[in-house]
């Protein structure tokens, strides 16, 4: 059987290697971006000169010699489900028995961003990195970033590393307080400012003003005109489903797939950022543009294809990020605001950038989510708690088991535990916060 995979991101690459281990299928991995699968998450470190291209390949080049996977460095221009073939830009048409679309995401393009305008860039693809390299090769005095997400903050760190003064325009009243509770959002906001990012909060771009096709100014809704010669747009990513929709495969926000990751066309599957689950799993979104989900989809589709697994079942939701030197880990659901059903126990040491929050159900007392800043938690333990829906008391009593702190580090987990135990003893059904 010939399995063709379009896209060699973490989804496509994980599928290819897992399938090669489990089956005798011949596998072809196609990508227009880079001949060897690489870690997109490392784009910033590449730009900052901390690693080289060879360091961020998911497997060393030699690895691909021994595996039964052929790689094609080319662009797929068309899928022909009727004849089971994909059309390539430079090479001959390729036939498949099973096709997997893993084309990832593309940069979200707000209405004010005209494609041909110079000085404006996103950050997703290697091409974008080359563009940023050219834009910053003359060390402009300053740059602006529109949109304060996880990629925006990485772009800010990249620009600052080259001494470019960076302004970030964020719609929310504190960095990411639509995803994180206010206390955490404030700690992150302060930390970002401390690292030299100038934050403009509660504002958005209205239009870009250009001269000779190069950006000159941006107009903000509240702050008015701002001079700008380089603009990074990080207002999010969208599933890249163009190939699929052109081929008549059902798409909505992304390429719609059933529980087996199968699209509306039976021998075509979709995984990674570009896939949209027909049925969202409890507490999860139908599209998840994160590394971990993409990897799990790849690995699990390999098992589905060799009939070792019934359906795609992601593990407990997990995400992590770095805001300069401040690291964040999230397990399960975290409710940013307050509600009657979900109660928070939250503990902070803002001057040390430490924060731990546990959320649980007000009636059943079952744990629903954990969010921490500046401390390390043990994944396996947190996952066990969440998937067993452990009562919050038990979680707090065995909290130290979840510590993944390096040796000699200050024991913040103990401080949190003491506080949380105290709370649970006295007022277990109201939100509680401790700021030390």
């Amino acid at each position: 059987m010939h399995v063709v995979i379009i896209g060699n991101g973490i989804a496509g690459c994980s599928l290819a290697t897992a399938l090669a281990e489990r089956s005798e299928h011949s596998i072809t991995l196609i990508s227009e971006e880079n001949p060897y699968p690489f870690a997109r998450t490392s784009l910033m470190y590449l730009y900052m000169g901390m690693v080289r291209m060879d360091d961020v390949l998911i497997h060393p080049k030699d690895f691909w010699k021994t595996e039964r996977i052929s790689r094609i460095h080319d662009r797929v221009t068309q899928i022909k489900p009727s004849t089971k073939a994909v059309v390539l830009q430079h090479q001959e048409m390729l036939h498949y028995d099973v096709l997997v679309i893993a084309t990832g995401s593309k940069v979200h393009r707000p209405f004010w961003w005209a494609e041909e305008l110079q000085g404006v860039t996103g950050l997703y693809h290697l091409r974008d990195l080359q563009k940023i390299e050219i834009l910053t090769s003359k060390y402009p005095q300053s740059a602006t970033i529109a949109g304060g997400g996880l990629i925006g903050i990485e772009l800010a760190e990249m620009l600052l590393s080259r001494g470019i003064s960076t302004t970030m325009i964020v719609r929310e009243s504190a960095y990411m307080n639509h995803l994180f509770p206010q206390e955490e959002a404030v700690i992150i906001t302060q930390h970002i400012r401390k690292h030299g990012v100038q934050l403009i909060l509660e504002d958005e771009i209205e239009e870009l003003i250009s001269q000779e096709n190069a950006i000159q100014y941006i107009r903000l809704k509240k702050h008015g005109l701002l001079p700008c010669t380089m603009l990074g747009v990080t207002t999010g990513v969208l599933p890249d489903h163009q190939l699929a929709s052109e081929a008549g495969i059902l798409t909505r926000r992304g390429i719609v797939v059933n529980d087996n990751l199968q699209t509306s066309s039976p021998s075509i599957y979709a995984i990674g950022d570009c896939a949209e689950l027909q049925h969202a799993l409890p507490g999860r979104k139908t599209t998840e543009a994160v590394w971990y989900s993409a990897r799990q989809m790849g690995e699990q589709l390999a098992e589905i294809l060799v009939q070792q697994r019934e359906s795609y079942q992601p593990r407990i939701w997990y995400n992590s990020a770095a805001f300069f030197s401040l690291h964040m880990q999230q397990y399960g659901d975290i409710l940013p605001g307050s509600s009657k059903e979900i109660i928070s126990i939250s503990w902070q040491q803002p001057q040390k950038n430490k924060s731990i929050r546990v959320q649980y159900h007000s009636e059943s007392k079952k744990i629903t989510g954990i969010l921490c800043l500046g401390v390390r938690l043990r994944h396996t333990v947190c996952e066990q708690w969440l998937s067993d829906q452990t009562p919050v008391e038990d979680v707090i009593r065995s909290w130290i088991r979840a510590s993944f702190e390096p040796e000699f580090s200050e024991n913040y987990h103990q401080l949190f535990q003491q506080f949380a135990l105290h709370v649970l003893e006295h007022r277990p059904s109201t939100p509680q916060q401790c700021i030390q």
Partner: protein
Amino acid sequence: MYPVARKDIFGLTPAIYSGLGLLAWLALAAQFWLPLPFRLPVVVASLSYLYLHRKTTERGPKGPEGLWYQPLFSRRWQAWGLAVLLTSLYSILYWRPSWLGLGTGGEENTGLIRLFDPLSHCLKGSPASEWFAYGFFYTWAVILFGITFIRKYKNDRYQVYRTYSIMFFQVAFAFLLPEILMSLRYPYVDIKHFWPLNYSFFFDWHLDGLMAAGKLGWLMLFWGIAGFTIVTPMMTWYYGKRWYCSWVCGCGALAETAGDGFRHLSDKSDTAWRIEQRTIYPIFILCIMMTILVLYTRFTGAETLAGISSHSLSHWYGFVIGSLFSGVAGVGFYPILGNRLWCRFGCPLAAYMGLIQTLRLKYTNEGRPADIKPRFRITTNGGQCISCGQCSNHCEMGIDVKSYAQRGEDIVRASCVGCGICSAVCPRDVLNLELKSEEMPTGKV
């Protein structure tokens, strides 16, 4: 302007520290008019100040900062220049010390080495030797670069503590104590320098020296033997080889401080790993054979065993392994092959400790109870690795840490010196140096 103002290390205002900088330059220029005892302190203070000042003050808009952009740290001609300079200096030190001003045949020291005479007189009542000058430079480098290393990793206590530790052992045990012993007419002994790294421990001149030094000498002899028979195996069994390589050893001290900027240059390929295994164990075996031969000669008086002359074997070992490999190449090639060339491909003590470090793993593989995990290992936190490659890039022992992390496997490698940098640089906190013997759940999620 670079938006993040880096504070001057001494917390001085810009005017004062540039004033002090000027003073430092003037003091350096005024060397020849200073009385001899003042010269070394003035040189050391001025250069230290200028270095720390440069490392910690604000710079304007500039090129990329990353290691692979900096010529000295990315094998460009500047790096080759430094390598040539370092290897030449080492060669002169070993084989032409008179070029540095060492007085031979009762003559007075001149030149560079003369600068050290006052300090040497102070410590042990005799003029400086080339090794005294070298020891001083070495210790100075460990302290100076150690300070910048601590600042770089100030949020990671493991890094801070172990750097204080290597600085302490270098100053107290490697530099001061032996000199003080000599001033008291005892033999020169660095008591933390264990066989087989200290390959000359069982040489005639060394044993004779110890035995002639009365009770203290015998004590040192027993300590030296206990060092490799009891202390090293025990400590390594419980804490991994890092207790020595990253906390105590002098070679490790220089590698971790002065060599820190070169750590990413170590080769990560499988070929390098294969070469490593084919050099480090043979050198260990060679060292054992040489020692047996030397002791055989000592006790039987026979010069040769199975046709091998003990004298020429120890002579060649000292020249090729002791001087050329561990000294000239070991440090001289920092800018080309990374800061742990000797530790990775040569050090016999590393081979010995590496075997102990991985012994427990072998137990588990051979059907012993699976819960006996090696005590020291690097664990990975679930499936959190984003394959960014920082850990592998920073591993000075050339271990491809990422390849383990992205599979969620523990890292138990004989060569790992437990420097902990892979864990310190991981942007997702995936790696942890752990000792727990109970089974803590880790692995891929």
